[in-house]
C-alpha cells in the first residue's frame, strides 16, 4: 500500500498571454519509508509539485491521496491533522528561518501552532530535536544569523521533524550549501530516514546527490515525468534519451576531462507557456522522428518515449 499516491496532478498558472503549464499530469506513488527523487532542470515543475504535495499550492487538476484520504482540496481545518504527517524542508537556509525568532522558537513553531504539548515540555522536545540533527541543544536561545548555512539547514530539518511526520518533501535541501557541508546534510538526512523510517520526496536538480539518497527516481521534463524507476535502473540503464543526456552532462571528477561518449543537448528548455506538441523533449532530442511531433508518448513501463533505449 502506498503512503502517497498522485494521479494526473496538474498546476497551471495564469500568465500574461496564456497559461504556464508548470505541472501537466503527474502520476506516481511513494510507499511508507521510501525515498523518491524528483529530478529535472529549472522549469520542469519539480518545485511546484513539492509545494502542491504539502498543500502550499492548490492543484488545478488531478488527485493527491495520502494514507487513502483524498487531500487534494481539503480545507484548512480538515487538513490540520494531516499537516502533521506531511512536512517540508526548503532550499534556502537563509530565507526559511524567521530572522527575528530564536532557534528554539523556530523549531517549536509546528508544536505551538498545533497546540501540542509534548511530555516533558516543548523546550525538552526542541532540545531533543536539535540534538537529533547534530546541533548543540544549548543553542536554543540563539538567532539564525549566528549560524552557518549548514547549521541553519539543520534547524530547518529539526523543524520539519517536530511533528514526527511520515513524509517529508525536501526541496533542493543541499543545493545552496558548500560542497563539504552538502555531504554532511545528505548523510544526516540518510541517517534520519533510516532511523525514523521516514518517507521522502527529494527534489533536486543534481542527479549525483539524488543517487546517494533515493531508492526510486522520477525524471521530469516540462511538467511531465519522462522516466521513473528504481535507482539502479535509472543510473545504470537509463531508457529515456533525456535521462541519458542529463547523466552525461554531469561533470565527473573520476573522468578528468575525458570526452568520449558524451551527449550534448543543444538549446535550452522550451518555455512551459508553449510546450512543443507531441513529445515535449523532441525539440532537443537526437532520436526524434515525425511521430514524436504528433503523438505524446504515454508513461508505460516507467518511460515515456516512442523510441526508448534497449527497446530495439
Amino acid at each position, binding site marked *: 500500500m502506498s503512503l502517497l499516491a498522485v494521479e494526473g496532478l496538474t498546476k497551471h498558472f495564469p500568465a500574461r498571454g496564456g497559461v504556464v503549464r508548470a505541472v501537466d499530469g503527474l502520476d506516481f506513488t511513494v510507499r511508507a519509508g521510501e525515498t523518491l527523487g524528483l529530478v529535472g532542470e529549472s522549469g520542469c515543475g519539480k518545485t511546484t509539485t513539492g509545494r502542491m504535495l504539502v498543500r502550499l499550492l492548490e492543484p488545478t487538476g488531478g488527485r493527491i491521496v495520502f494514507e487513502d484520504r483524498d487531500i487534494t482540496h481539503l480545507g484548512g481545518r480538515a487538513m490540520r491533522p494531516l499537516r502533521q504527517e506531511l512536512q517540508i524542508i526548503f532550499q*534556502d537556509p537563509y530565507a526559511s528561518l524567521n530572522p527575528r525568532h530564536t532557534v528554539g522558537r523556530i523549531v517549536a513553531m509546528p508544536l505551538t501552532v498545533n497546540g501540542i504539548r509534548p511530555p516533558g515540555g516543548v523546550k525538552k522536545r526542541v532540545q531533543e530535536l536539535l540534538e537529533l540533527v547534530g546541533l548543540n541543544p544549548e543553542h536554543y536561545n540563539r538567532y539564525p544569523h549566528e549560524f552557518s548555512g549548514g547549521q541553519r539547514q539543520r534547524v530547518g530539518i529539526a523543524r520539519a521533524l517536530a511533528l514526527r511526520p511520515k513524509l517529508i518533501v525536501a526541496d533542493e535541501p543541499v543545493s545552496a550549501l558548500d560542497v563539504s557541508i552538502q555531504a554532511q546534510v545528505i548523510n544526516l538526512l540518510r541517517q534520519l530516514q533510516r532511523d525514523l523510517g521516514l518517507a521522502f520526496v527529494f527534489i533536486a536538480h543534481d542527479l549525483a546527490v539524488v543517487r546517494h539518497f533515493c531508492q526510486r527516481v522520477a525524471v521530469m521534463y516540462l511538467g511531465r515525468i519522462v522516466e521513473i524507476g528504481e535507482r539502479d535502473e535509472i543510473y545504470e540503464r537509463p531508457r529515456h534519451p533525456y535521462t541519458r543526456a542529463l547523466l552525461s552532462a554531469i561533470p565527473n571528477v573520476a573522468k578528468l576531462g575525458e570526452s568520449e561518449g558524451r551527449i550534448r543537448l543543444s538549446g535550452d528548455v522550451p518555455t512551459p507557456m508553449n510546450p512543443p506538441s507531441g513529445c515535449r523533449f523532441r525539440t532537443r532530442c537526437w532520436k526524434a522522428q515525425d511521430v514524436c511531433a504528433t503523438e505524446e508518448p504515454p508513461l508505460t513501463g516507467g518511460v515515456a518515449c516512442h523510441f526508448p533505449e534497449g527497446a530495439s
Partner: protein
Amino acid sequence: MSLSPEVLEPVPVADAAPVEKGVVGRSPGQLAWTRLRRDRTAMISGCTLLLLMLVALAAPLIEVLYGVGPHDEFKELLTRRGAIPLGYAGGVSADHWFGIEPGTGRDIFIRMVYGLRTSIFIALASALVTAGIGVTAGILAGYLGGWVDTVISWITDFALALPFLIFALAIMRPVEMRFYGPRDEVPVWFRVTVLIAIFAAFGWTSTARLVRGQVISLREREFIEAARASGAGLGHILFRQLLPNLWAPILVSFSLAVPAYVTGEAALSFLGIGIVDPTPDFGAMIFRSIAYLQTDPAYVFFPGITIFALVLAFNLFGDALRDALDPKSSR
C-alpha cells in the same frame, strides 16, 4: 572516488561547536541597540529628546519650583504704551529666564515648558494612532492581496491625493460648529482630539504603504511557507511571523513621523486652527510673536529655537535608528 573511513575517521554528524562564547544569543534587536550606542549623533540627539520629554512630563513640578504659572500675568513689567517688556532681550531676568510676553505679560519660560507638553503629546499620540492604523492596513493589504489590497491601496491613493492643509483648514471650523455652535467655548481637549484625528486620517497612508511593501517581500519567504505548511492560522502568520520583521521600518517611520507632527501642529496652530491662545503652544506663541517681530524680536527667539532643536533631534535620531536597524542601507 571514495576514501575509506580508516583514514578520514568516522565523521561525527555534529558540526563543531561555533567559536563564539556564551549560550544566549544576541537578537537582531540587541545588535541594533549596540550599534545605536556606538553612534555619537544618536546618543546626543537621543539625550536631547529625553531631556525635552522629561521637561514636558515634569511641567507642573517645574511650575512649582519656578514659582510662576503659565497664565500669570506681569503687566507691571510692560511699558505703558505698546505693552513691550521692560529691560533687555524681552525682559530676561532672574525671575523670568526667557523674558515675558509682550501684550499679556506672561512668563515665556513656563509657557514654553507647557507648550512642549502640548506639542509632544499631540505629536506622539498622532504618531501612535497613525502607526496603529497604518500597520494594520499595510499588513492586511500586503499579506491578503486580492480585493483587500485593491480597496486599501485605493483609499491610500485617495488620501495621498487630498491636499492636507486645505482639508484641515476647511474641516476644523465646521466640526467645531457642529459640536459647540458659534457661542460656546471650544474645550482644549476637543481641539486636540480633532487635530490628532486629522493627522491620523492623513498620516496612516504612508506607513501603510511602507508596511505593505515590506510584507509583500516577506510573504513569499520560505519561513512563512513553513508556518503555513505546519497549519498555522492567519493570526499566527500576521502577528507572530510577519510583525517581528516589521519593527524596524515601523520604528523608523514612527520616529520620523513625530517631528513632522510637531511642525504640523505648530503650523496649524500658527494658522489659528489648532491650539489657540491662552493654551500654551509653540505654534500659537510663534503666531503671536510675529506681530512683535520689530518691537520685541526676542519673543520669537526662544520658542523658535526650541522647536527647531526638538524637530532636529527627532529627525537625527530617526536617521540614526534606521542606520542601526539596517546597517547595510548606509554603508
